[in-house]
């Protein structure tokens, strides 16, 4: 039904426009175009240190990841929007009020996601690359091939997001079994000598060697999971747990020495029960850091001594600072607006929980240091990591208060964040390259942190929380 499709596209647009502002969001494809266009001119430079095949693998992995994220947001969208804006009802959940089957709505929803994100992300990226390609010595056919294969990579991610969610809806054990089968399959292929990811991933193989058989494989990789998802679609979560014992009171007791034990206990329960604690650790922490580590390893020949580990420590700190956004995604200030609490108190408690969560990057960095033989530099690495993490936290609390997940997409906020963070990162990287002992200069970041945090609490307490 075409009307349903059009309504869903409009809804998706308005959803984004509500969060990011109409003008800002309308400029988003232009931003992607500009990044792709300008980034293309860096390709010749990258190729001198990174093999073309590795660059292609990264690009395809990125688009598959994008598809996974779009699919996950599509399925969790209602929950996310309810947390941000209160009661939200989406067309995808309206089969009870419309004379249309859930399966039909779900199929249209998939088509909408494919079309919408193709125009939002993929097409601007391809056009940006295509316009730059004559200037960087890329053959005219490459942008067209990329358009097809990157779209297939995106669709693969999207179809697997829907496939996994369908399995989960039937049984979480089914999902676990599928993950185990995938892991065993991957390990077996690796053991059989297929170490090159391109040989295991049809869209990438298609890009490197266009044949009809790889095109068919790529299409099957998209269509089969979609078909299974639609055929087995259910809105009943068969083994979803509905009842929980009281964890709040014992946890609050354990945290009694904290400044606001009730608020910290609530934050930790939110992370645990929503699945965000594990999910975010994997997808927002380990996965990006894995990619960063891969990228930095490729540059190891160019970076002196322990430089790779120290730069990695800094970047781990930047990624760790996003843990503040994990804590602020569950509810809006309206959840607390009728209690004797102000925004500053809430922010302070979230910063406390954030500090507890910094044990994750610290432990992660210790493991990396152990695994890469850099234990000697663990302490400077930790100082860099935690220093930059708390510094970035102080900036984001000042700029976005309790709504970093929304306001970080505001171009002004994002711009100021990078302006405040970029030079500090650059200085710390340079100093660490000169001598690892200079890493301890990150301790000086305590000054802006201690200056900014209390002011952020006061600023956002006096702010009127009318919408989010």
């Amino acid at each position: 039904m075409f009307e349903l499709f059009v309504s869903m596209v409009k809804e998706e647009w308005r959803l984004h426009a509500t969060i990011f502002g109409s003008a800002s969001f309308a400029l988003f494809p232009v931003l992607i175009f500009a990044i792709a266009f300008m980034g293309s001119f860096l390709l010749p430079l990258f190729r001198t240190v990174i093999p073309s095949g590795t660059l292609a693998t990264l690009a395809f992995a990125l688009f598959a990841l994008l598809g996974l994220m779009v699919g996950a947001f599509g399925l969790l969208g209602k929950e996310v929007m309810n947390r941000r804006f209160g009661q939200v009802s989406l067309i995808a959940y309206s089969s009870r009020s419309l004379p249309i089957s859930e399966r039909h709505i779900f199929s249209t929803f998939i088509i909408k996601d494919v079309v919408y994100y193709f125009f939002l992300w993929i097409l601007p990226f391809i056009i940006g690359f295509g316009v730059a390609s004559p200037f960087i010595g890329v053959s005219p056919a490459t942008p067209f091939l990329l358009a097809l294969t990157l779209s297939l990579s995106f669709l693969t991610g999207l179809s697997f997001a829907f496939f996994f969610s369908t399995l989960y809806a039937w049984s979480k054990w089914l999902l676990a079994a599928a993950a185990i089968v995938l892991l065993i399959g991957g390990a077996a292929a690796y053991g059989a000598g297929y170490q090159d990811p391109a040989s295991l991933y049809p869209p990438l193989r298609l890009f490197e060697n266009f044949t009809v058989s790889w095109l068919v494989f790529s299409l099957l990789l998209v269509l089969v999971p979609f078909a299974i998802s639609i055929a087995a679609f259910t809105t009943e979560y068969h083994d979803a747990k509905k009842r929980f014992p009281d964890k709040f009171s014992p946890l609050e007791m354990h945290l009694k020495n904290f400044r606001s034990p009730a608020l910290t206990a609530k934050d930790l329960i939110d992370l645990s029960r929503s699945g965000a604690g594990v999910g975010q650790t994997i997808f927002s922490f380990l996965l990006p850091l894995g990619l960063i580590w891969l990228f930095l390893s490729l540059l190891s020949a160019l970076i002196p001594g322990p430089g790779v580990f120290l730069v990695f420590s800094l970047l781990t700190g930047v990624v760790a600072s996003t843990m503040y956004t994990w804590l602020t995604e569950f509810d809006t200030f309206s959840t607390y607006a009728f209690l004797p609490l102000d925004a500053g108190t809430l922010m302070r408690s979230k910063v406390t929980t954030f500090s507890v969560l910094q044990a994750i990057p610290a432990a992660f960095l210790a493991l990396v240091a152990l695994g890469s033989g850099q234990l000697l530099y663990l302490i400077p690495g930790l100082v860099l990591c935690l220093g930059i993490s708390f510094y970035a936290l102080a900036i984001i609390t000042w700029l976005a208060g309790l709504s970093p997940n929304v306001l970080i997409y505001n171009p002004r906020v994002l711009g100021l964040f990078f302006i405040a963070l970029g030079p500090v990162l650059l200085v710390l990287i340079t100093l660490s390259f000169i001598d690892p002992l200079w890493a301890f200069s990150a301790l000086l970041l305590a000054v802006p942190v201690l200056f900014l945090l209390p002011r952020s609490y006061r600023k956002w307490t006096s702010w009127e929380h009318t919408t989010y």
Partner: protein
Amino acid sequence: MRSEMETMITTEGLTRTFGSTIAVDHVSLSVQKGELYGLLGPNGSGKTTMIRMLTGQIRPTGGSARVLGLDPDREPVGVRALIGIIPEQETPPSFLTSEEYLHFVGSVRNIPDIRQQADWWFEFLEFSDKRDVLCKDLSRGTRQKLMFSQAFLHNPGLALIDEPLINFDPVMQEKVKGYLSDYVGKGGTVFISTHILEIAEEICTSFAILHQGQLIHTGTVRELRERDRHLNEFFLSLVRTRTHV
């Protein structure tokens, strides 16, 4: 001084604009101790904005208000510590169970006997079987029971309630109306905002009518009865006249 103590809410020319829209336009009213005061008005008349200003959730753009002697604009946390509030939209935290949520509110409000208080409310509003259910999985009616409980957990002297009975079934409505009447009888004060006039006429002692942000009438239900008029018909005649004007 005595009169100041007895007045629970006063507003003087209270105004709130959102851009070019005047949501509340120079409203002056006062609510005395022991009243069950109804703020009535059609959808979009400014009732929720009034409650949000009185509870310090949003700021007035003009005029002033005092709630229990405090200025909600300057001391929003102080006001919210003393009063109970039930917002129009029930937004308890998604991942706490209803029992955990009441304990959470008890901790935030420093209620010493929170377990006993929570148990009483679970029994009274008949939702003990939902103690261990996450707030996000509760029905709207149960969520409203939960929000009702959290507002009265600390025995406030004043409760501000936005649409108090809208999600309750008739049996529960009777129970809650009875509770509110008892509460007022024992010296409590209730300020409710509603557009369900039958309920307002049944339980309110005094009322004010807001229309397009302006206060168009204040009075008591007794005065109406003495004039042999019903709130429903009185309200409609006032609002229709204003709309036609």
